[in-house]
């Protein structure tokens, strides 16, 4: 552990994240403001479509913020995994020319996504306040939900980044998986809209569904249905177990492959 976070590695990590941020809004007039503007504009769209026209979440208090939080968390997951996926191949110049801890490259792109999530969450909080959300103490549990998503996403990131070196199909496959995941997760629709309780239970077994619902419960409204409320007994362990498995398998696969990145890229 000591060598993983050595002084040099920390300095390199900071520099890579900094570079990433500098390049992100390169050439745009508003620059960093886009980090805040994007979720803001997203909120406007969601508000118009879901609250004014579709009236989907009529039963849920503060539905627009509820919706925004879900989308922000899902976008974080999407951004982090898709960026990490190409990170090793994209940084092939470094890997083939200098000695560098390979995990740092994936880790740094995950940190950029994390910082972006932080900015997005500020917008969510501002809207929550304007929307009259009364925060309870459970709001302090939100970081735990985010940590769970992060652990799941970093495991997948390591796996995807390593696999992409050998199989370039992965990027297309992952795009489809994310698209399917978006609809399989109760993000834009409330879980109660699904008629079958069995399917509800099945969906909440996914770590993303479970953590997003928990986050909504903790921050916005206790009316959000959580895995704890839906699942009985030991079933509640499944989403966490899946997260742990993805994390460990991803890490192990990355470690076994990383020795050969330089010659395979």
């Amino acid at each position: 552990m000591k060598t993983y976070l050595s002084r040099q590695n920390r300095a390199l990590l900071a520099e890579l994240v900094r570079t990433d941020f500098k390049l992100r809004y390169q050439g745009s007039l508003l620059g960093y403001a886009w980090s805040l503007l994007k979720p803001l504009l997203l909120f406007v769209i969601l508000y118009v479509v879901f609250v004014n026209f579709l009236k989907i979440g009529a039963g849920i208090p503060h539905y627009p913020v509820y919706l925004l939080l879900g989308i922000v968390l899902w976008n974080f997951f999407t951004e982090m995994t898709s960026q990490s996926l190409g990170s090793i191949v994209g940084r092939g110049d470094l890997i083939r020319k200098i000695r560098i801890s390979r995990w740092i490259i994936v880790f740094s792109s995950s940190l950029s996504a994390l910082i972006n999530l932080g900015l997005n969450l500020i917008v969510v909080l501002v809207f929550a306040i304007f929307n009259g959300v009364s925060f309870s103490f459970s709001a302090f549990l939100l970081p735990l939900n985010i940590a769970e998503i992060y652990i799941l996403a970093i495991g997948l990131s390591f796996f995807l980044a390593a696999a992409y070196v050998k199989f370039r199909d992965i990027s297309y496959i992952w795009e489809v998986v994310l698209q399917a995941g978006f609809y399989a997760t109760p993000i834009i629709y409330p879980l109660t809209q699904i008629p079958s309780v069995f399917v509800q239970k099945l969906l909440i077994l996914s770590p993303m569904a479970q953590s997003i619902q928990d986050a909504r419960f903790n921050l916005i409204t206790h009316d959000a249905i959580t895995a704890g409320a839906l699942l009985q007994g030991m079933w509640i362990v499944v989403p966490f177990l899946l997260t742990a498995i993805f994390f460990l398998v991803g890490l192990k696969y990355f470690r076994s492959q990383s020795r050969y990145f330089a010659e395979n890229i």
Partner: protein
Amino acid sequence: MEDTAIKITNLSKGFKLPHERQNTLKGTLINFNKRGYEKQRVLENLNIEIKKGEFVGILGRNGSGKSTLLKTLSGIYTPDKGSIDIQGKLTPFIELGVGFNPELSGRDNVFLNGALLGFSRSEVKKMYDDIVSFAELERFMDQKLKNYSSGMQVRLAFSVAIQANTDILVLDEVLAVGDEAFQRKCYDYFNELKAKGKTVILVTHDMSAVRRFCTRALVLNAGEVIYDGDTESATDIYRNLNLTSTEASIERSNKRAKSKAVFDADAYIQSVSTLDEDGEKKVLYRPKEKIVISCTFKLDGSIARPSLQLWFNNPGGTALSAIRIHSKDIKKEHINLDKEFTLNWILDGIFNDGKYLVTAEVSSETDYEALETIRDACEFSIVGWDLPNVLVHPRRVFEMKQAQK
């Protein structure tokens, strides 16, 4: 053991070369059971020990495994077999300016590059002014790197690189880039490294740099160390390696020339070729070796006072030298259409390193009009002079005398 910087034991490294790269999942699934690759051994059972403070040159032709050795040494590739023990911190410079981003300013790139070398931000801040002034780029640091000329980029990269505070340096062909001023800076840096007693491993094709700086040199051929010792012998062996391949290529081009040049059955000039002193065919000569140019002529009595000439041109077409035989030296019995006669010219090796094309000509001495010319009838090469940047090497003798009062 204590003064050992690098110890390589039984190192082997190979690559799997797919016949057709399977970069897609479908390809892998379909060819799942087939071994769609061949194993190429690049390094074979290497044993090298490098002591602290040594300046080691690594020589070898392209594809001999030099770069693979460096990259394995640097931890970029993982060895298949064997081990590498490194005492101290090793910094590789496989290329200058790795990780430079064209969209970032020169300043940001210095910090990024510094971090890649293992410096923290505050450390880079401290050396920042030195870096900039050494690169002579004060006015440009806030511009994006993409607006730099390639020379400016190399200067900046080099200025950052030399800040590396390390025990062992691995340099791959750093001299290949940059102009003369840059090379001088490189040389100064090498001297500085030597003075500081750093361990350096240098891969280069520049023999003069090897002789000047290295305390020891290795010659690599087909993944094996074929020589390990002093730089003089190493550069000689390396030259000989190059000779064998040059020889093959000259023979090929002579064959082409033969089919191209018109050696008519009725022509005066029947053939031109180069031999060694024993009459064996030869195309590649060492310095000072005698070059025998053998021409076969078929002359008839219709030519009044024939004379025979050879021209030596360089590949650019410039005539460097010519020799002639006058008609008075050609015996009567040689002027006979039915019989060929062979003329051997023996040249002392005064030509410098390079390729020479021979043009043969028959002319009449009455008006010096060329009767028959065969351009580029054959070619030969010379390799191995220790003063290669001149045109000719005149034969000379010495005379040394004590000054008399």
